[in-house]
Each structure stands twice: as C-alpha cells, then as structure tokens.
C-alpha cells in the first residue's frame, strides 16, 4: 500500500449538495427551507461556477398565449426529444415551472417586462408559442445573482473549490461523499443523510465551449450504482466561434438569418447543395451535419472549422444588425466586415444522464440528482430554454425530498471507514506513483477530446465508433494506470484535479460509445451515417446503464407514453426524419 500523502478531515451534515450552479443552489435552498442542515460543495466558487451564469437564452415557463399550456409545451418537448423523454418528468416540469419566475424575483432577480407590466416572453426554436421569460441576454446571470443572495440570506453552508471524488455508500445507501478540497489538498469525508448530485453534464469531454462540464456527476452516480439513461445523445450548436484564436461562445443564429454565408475552402456556399430551399437556415442539427461533411471531405477552413462570412453585406448593415457579434470580434481587433471568421459545431449539452423518478431519487436510496446531470426530461434532444426550467423545478424537488427523507430517518448513518480509506489510498497512490513510462494528463486529454470529436461527434459510423471504443478500452487498461501527477503541491493542485477528471471521462466515454453503437438509427442528438433515419418500430427504447461489481451492465427499456401517444401527433409519427 502507498504511503498516505494526503491529509483527511471529517465533516457532518444532513443534506449534502454536490455542485454549484442553479440546480445545486435551488436544491440547497429548498432543503434549508425544510429545516435541514445543508452543505453545498462546489468545484468552483459559489455563484460563479458551472454553466448557469453563461446561459443567455431564457426560461420556458410562462404560457402567456391563451392557446398555450402545459400540454402544448409537453408535446413540443417530446417532439424535440424524439419521444424518448420520461413523460411524467416532462409533465412535472411544464406544470410546476410557472411559480419559479415569481420565486426568483423574491430572491432578488428581475426579468424583462412588456409595456403593460407583464413578463416579456421570447419564442425559441421548436416551441409552438413564445413562452420564455428572460433578462436581456443574461438570463442565467440574473438567475444566479438571486440564488446566491438567497443562499446567503438563509445561511446555507458552502465549501468553494471542493470536488467530490466518490459517493460513499453503506449497505446499498448513499451516506456521504469523499471530497477533495483544492485550496488545501485535504480529502474530506462528508457524512450526510442524503446526497444530491447537481453537477453539470459532460459536454466538456468533447471539444466543447462549455468545457467545465466534465461529467463528474455521471461517473460518481455510475460508480455508486445508480442508473444512467440516453447517454448517446449529445446536443451540438452548429456555429461556435473557432477562429480567430481565443474568441469564445456561440455565433448566434442571427449571423445566418441576417444573410451571413457559410463557405467551404473553395468559397462555395455549400448549404445550397444540401438544402437548396432553406440553405443556411436549415435546422441546427442539419447544419451541423452538413458542416462536418464538408470538413471531412477536405473542404474545411484553414484552422479546421468552416468559414462564415458577412463580407458581402454592406458594412453599415453589419454594424447595425449584428451589433453584438460585430463588437465582440472588434474587441479582439478582428473586423468581420472585411474578413471571414471560422465556426465549427461544438457540443454544449448531454441530453442523457442519471435516471431519476418524480421525486428526483436515483436507484440508490439516499442519492438524489437534479439538473443537467439527469437524463429523461429532454429525451434525445433538448429544446432551447428548457434547461433553466428543468434545473429550477427539479432542484427544488430534490432539495425538498432529500430533506424530508432525512427528517424521517433522523438517525445518523455510520461512517464507512473502509470505503473512504480506499479512496484515500487511490488518490494518494495517484499522487505518489512513478511508473517507468509515465503519461501526464494534458496530452492524454487532448487526444481523447480530438478522438471523441472525430469518431463520436456529429457524424457517427460503426467503423469510427469501434476505433473510439478500442481507444477507451486501451486507455483504461494502459494509460490510466500510468497516469501521473507531477505537481506535488497541496495548495491549488489543479493537476491532481485534472487527473481525477480523466477517470470520470473514461467512464462517460465508455457509456456514450456503447449506447451509440447499439442504437442503429438516427434520432435527435445522435446521427449515424450508416442508419440515417429514425426507426420508431424498433427504437422507441431507452438504453440504461448501471455498474455492478465493476462491470458495466446495460438494459433496453420500452418508452412509456402515459400522457402523449405517438399517434396523437400524426405529422411527427409519419415522418422518419431524425429531427423535428
């Protein structure tokens, strides 16, 4: 056994919330309101970490049009999700969500109003009506301000820069977590009556713009024995900034709708070839697929993206109609009126995740999950602005249910010293080991990101995915055991954090590839060139994973349709297009 190079400490709480975004804060607030002793551990800083502050869009929760209502919203969500959604969860989301806009305003947020004083709403793609409440272009930011202030008002305890590395179980029940405190390098055993996972999804294992979503929660849940669902579905945004270097974030749909062209290296407007009618304005998924086909055919731009240009439009028009994008690029000294930019589809959301019931419980008693880490609500593809609603509604439910469960039990769970000891040894071993042929995290990570993009990206084929599957198996056997942490510092050792994330990544990759190989059709965020159409006869099924004695098990389950039947939406049912 390795010498224990890390210090350990113990903490106690009733409800432990893992994560620091909106779902986690909402869960912590709602558990605290029930009187529970709550502790929130956050990999970044509370209110600043995760992806919630970056959410620009809106919250689809205000059915303002008299023709609109929860059922229409449910139907929209299901059609986008390829009917793989858990309909009960969608019903809860669309029925319970409206209260949250008022709740957030009591926390200190304010959302945009119309002249008559009612909430202003936006319509997002795929929604039948305008129903998204927003705050300018900074809805997520405004939301986090309120949640953060409410956390402070209620006096919820939180630990910043603390990363959960293992859910601790005893007798099949979640009883706490091992958490690495990055500022001191100490490993905490946080004992808790219930644990709520509210970490983000795993878009960051691809070359994503939401790169802080590294799949921690997926792996933690899997290792603890919970079930995960719909892991093959990744959501891509077709036009993320790629070049000039360092410009980040998505280039919004406005760029294309105001007359921007997508060009390949030969200067051809290739979308005319794929979709002569809609051209650049085809649906997001379709544009992503077309861009990738061009790049793979060797007609990509100089730095590996595809050109997007507004140089043919009058300068003044660009300045006025594309004000935000124009200014953003100008601040980097890049003039989009004269030069084309490079864009590239990048993933920003995993549609699948931890399987939960209507009380946010996972298969493991005492382990709850809420927010982007869960799967089922969005099915195969998420509708824009449904994410911020999902995290509020289910964050609230998870916090409340966990607090109620803890209150009903009252008895403190035992310390599982042996399981915690294994985790201490694992991390100490990782720090101390010096194999003959070591490998460090940065090159391994870069290799995997590039391979995931190439073989498990927008365009998937059996052949490509097999290559990736072999690489994952190889990395698991050959690379992870020789992964080293050079930096021996205890204070802010991000290298250790990144190395631990590498283990999470491999778990997530394995599930995503296994599911994607199994699903011989195209649907939502899963497009296979060898099976390009939707196959409702065989594939109205969810692929569900769990781990037993270190072995990855899967199961196919038929989708239940208690609320909306496929036959209720004949136009959708009669098409075989993977996208709605």
């Amino acid at each position: 056994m390795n010498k224990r190079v890390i210090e350990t400490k113990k903490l106690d709480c009733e409800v432990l919330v893992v994560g620091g975004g909106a779902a986690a804060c909402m869960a912590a607030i709602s558990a605290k309101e029930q009187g529970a002793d709550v502790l929130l551990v956050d990999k970044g800083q509370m209110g600043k970490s995760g992806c919630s502050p970056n959410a620009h869009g809106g919250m689809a929760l205000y059915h303002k049009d008299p023709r609109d209502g929860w059922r229409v919203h449910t139907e929209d969500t299901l059609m986008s999700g390829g009917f793989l959604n858990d309909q009960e969860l969608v019903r809860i989301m669309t029925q319970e969500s409206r209260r949250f806009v008022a709740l957030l305003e009591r926390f200190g947020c304010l959302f945009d109003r119309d002249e008559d004083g009612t909430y202003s709403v936006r319509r997002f793609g795929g929604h039948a009506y305008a129903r998204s409440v927003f705050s300018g272009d900074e809805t997520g930011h405004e939301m986090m301000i309120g949640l953060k202030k409410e956390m402070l008002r209620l006096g919820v305890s939180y630990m910043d820069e603390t990363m959960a590395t293992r859910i601790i179980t005893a007798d099949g029940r979640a009883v706490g977590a091992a958490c690495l405190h990055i500022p001191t390098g100490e490993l905490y055993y946080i004992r808790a009556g219930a644990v709520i996972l509210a970490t983000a999804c795993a878009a960051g294992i691809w070359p994503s713009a939401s790169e802080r979503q590294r799949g921690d929660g997926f792996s933690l849940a899997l290792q603890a024995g919970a079930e995960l669902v719909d892991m093959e579905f990744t959501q891509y945004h077709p036009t993320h900034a790629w070049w000039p270097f360092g410009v980040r974030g998505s280039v919004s749909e406005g760029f294309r709708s105001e007359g921007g062209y997508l060009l390949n290296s030969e200067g051809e407007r290739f979308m005319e070839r794929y979709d002569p009618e809609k051209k650049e304005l085809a649906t997001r998924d379709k544009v992503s697929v077309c861009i990738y086909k061009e790049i793979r055919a060797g007609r990509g731009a100089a730095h590996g993206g595809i050109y997007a240009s507004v140089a043919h439009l009058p300068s003044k028009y660009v300045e006025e109609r594309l004000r935000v994008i124009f200014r953003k690029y100008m601040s980097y000294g890049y003039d989009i009126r004269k030069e084309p930019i490079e864009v590239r589809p990048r993933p920003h959301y995993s549609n699948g995740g931890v399987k939960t019931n209507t009380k946010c419980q996972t298969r493991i008693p005492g382990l709850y999950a809420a927010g982007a880490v869960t799967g089922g609500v969005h099915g195969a593809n998420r509708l824009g602005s449904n994410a911020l609603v999902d995290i509020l509604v289910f964050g609230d439910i998870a916090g409340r249910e966990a607090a109620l469960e803890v209150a009903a039990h009252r008895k403190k769970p035992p310390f599982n010293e042996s399981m915690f000891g294994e985790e201490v040894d694992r991390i100490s071993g990782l720090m101390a080991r010096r194999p003959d042929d070591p490998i460090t995290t940065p090159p391994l990570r870069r290799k995997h990101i590039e391979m995931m993009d190439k073989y498990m990206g927008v365009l998937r084929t059996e052949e490509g995915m097999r290559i990736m599957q072999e690489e994952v198996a190889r990395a698991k056997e050959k690379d992870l055991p020789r992964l080293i942490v050079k930096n021996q510092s205890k204070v802010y050792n991000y290298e250790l954090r990144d190395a631990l994330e590498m283990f999470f990544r491999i778990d997530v990759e394995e599930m995503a590839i296994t599911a994607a190989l199994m699903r011989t059709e195209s649907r939502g965020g899963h497009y296979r060139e060898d099976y390009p159409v939707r196959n409702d006869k065989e594939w109205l099924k969810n692929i569900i994973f769990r781990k037993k004695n270190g072995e990855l098990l899967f199961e196919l389950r038929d989708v239940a349709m208690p609320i909306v039947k496929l036959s209720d939406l004949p136009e959708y049912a009669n098409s075989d297009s993977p996208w709605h």
Partner: protein
Amino acid sequence: MTCYLPPIDKPDAIYNIQILRFDPEKDRYPHWESYQVPFVRTMTVIEALEYLWDQGEYIAFRSNCREFTCGSCAMEINGKPALACDTLLEDGMRIEPLSRFPVIKDLVVDTSTVPERFKALKLWPECKHREPATKDSPPLPAAKSAIEHYRETYSRCIECYSCLDACPQSDSDESPYFGPLYMLQLARVMEHPLDEKDRVAQAAEAGISHCINCYECANVCPMNLSPATIVNELRSKTIRRLDLLFGRRRKEVG
C-alpha cells in the same frame, strides 16, 4: 487546465511575459518569473496561462466561463485589474494577483470576505412580509424601462472585484470605505420593488463619504458599468439625511 482550442502550429510571434509567483509551501516572498509564450493573433492572457500550464508550469489561477460572465479570472495586468479572458496578450506583459486581497498562491487570492460582507449588508430584498410565490403570483410592479435601466446600470455586474482592486480609498478590508462593489450592490437592491431596508444609511455607514471621485472603478470595469456614478448618486442621498451626519458608528453596519 486548458480549454480545447485549435493547436498553435505556427505562432505569429514569441512573447515574453512576467508573472508574479508565490508558493506558500516554499516561498517567503512573491517573486517575478519570466516566460516565453507563442502568440497568435487575438490570443488573450487566459490562453497564455493555459498554454504554460500544458507545458508543466503549474501557475495557480482561477478561471471558469472564459466568456466574461463569471468574473473569476480578474488579475492585475500591467498594474491594472482586468479579466484575463478579456485582455489581449501583449509582449512584455506583467501579470500579478489582485492586490486588494491576500494572496494564497500565484494569481489566486482569498476573496472569502466578499460574500461575508454581502451577508452582513443583507443584499437581498429585505422585507417584513414576503408573500409566498405561487403559480398565480402577479409580476412584481416594475416598469419595462425601469428594468432595462436596472440591468444596464447595476445588474450586469459580474462581481470580478476589479473595482475594489482599483479603488485607492479601499485598499483592504480594514479600510473605512467598503468599496465601489458594495455601493453598487446596495444601489442595486434598493431598486428592487420588494426591498424596504434603509440602504442609504447602510451606504453612509459603509464609508461612502470616503470616495474621492477618481472614477478608477469606472475605468477598470470590464462590463462598462460606472460604480463611481452610482456612488455619487447614492452619496447625494446620504447628504440629505441629517440623521446620518451625526453619531452612527461603523460597527452598526448591517
């Protein structure tokens, strides 16, 4: 550490930059170190730090969103506070931690007193009776234009602490003046329709009179807000309050 970016095959230039390093486990004092980084057009400071990280230079720094929305990566660049993700890299740059806060390691500073002060100042809508939020709760009374003004003036603040760092009158938590960030936050919550607390008195007690109107906070704000203008408006309100001119002590703040 790195975000996934296009690989740097052909840099446009090689830049020399200097970073103030401090390792609490080894060093007694901070010291400057020089580094060479490849520069590609439109590269920012954050990519230079990430590049060094990949090369095995374990410089501690905070970064999260990389899109100027989280405010994690504020540091002093050429002597001025700025967001690393929002500052184009230049040759000869000097990068050091924010000087307003105690340094923990390299570019990471201890900002834990900020949320504590937010809590002490009760920066949430403070009211005697808060109606529970239900499905049928009407929107709080607020005009369209008022909300737009509120967002453009206050709510865009990402709490990066650049203004605190730039303020010559608030160089530590011991200073009698809390600093521009807190004044902006007080003015922000004052605009909220539910808030009933006497924010003007709080501003007076938090030392608003010490502001010397230098506008440094407005000059450095990455979101182009003007805390200085807000301080002036708030201060003019404190001056009209005779009860605040006499007697009250700082310890009563909150």
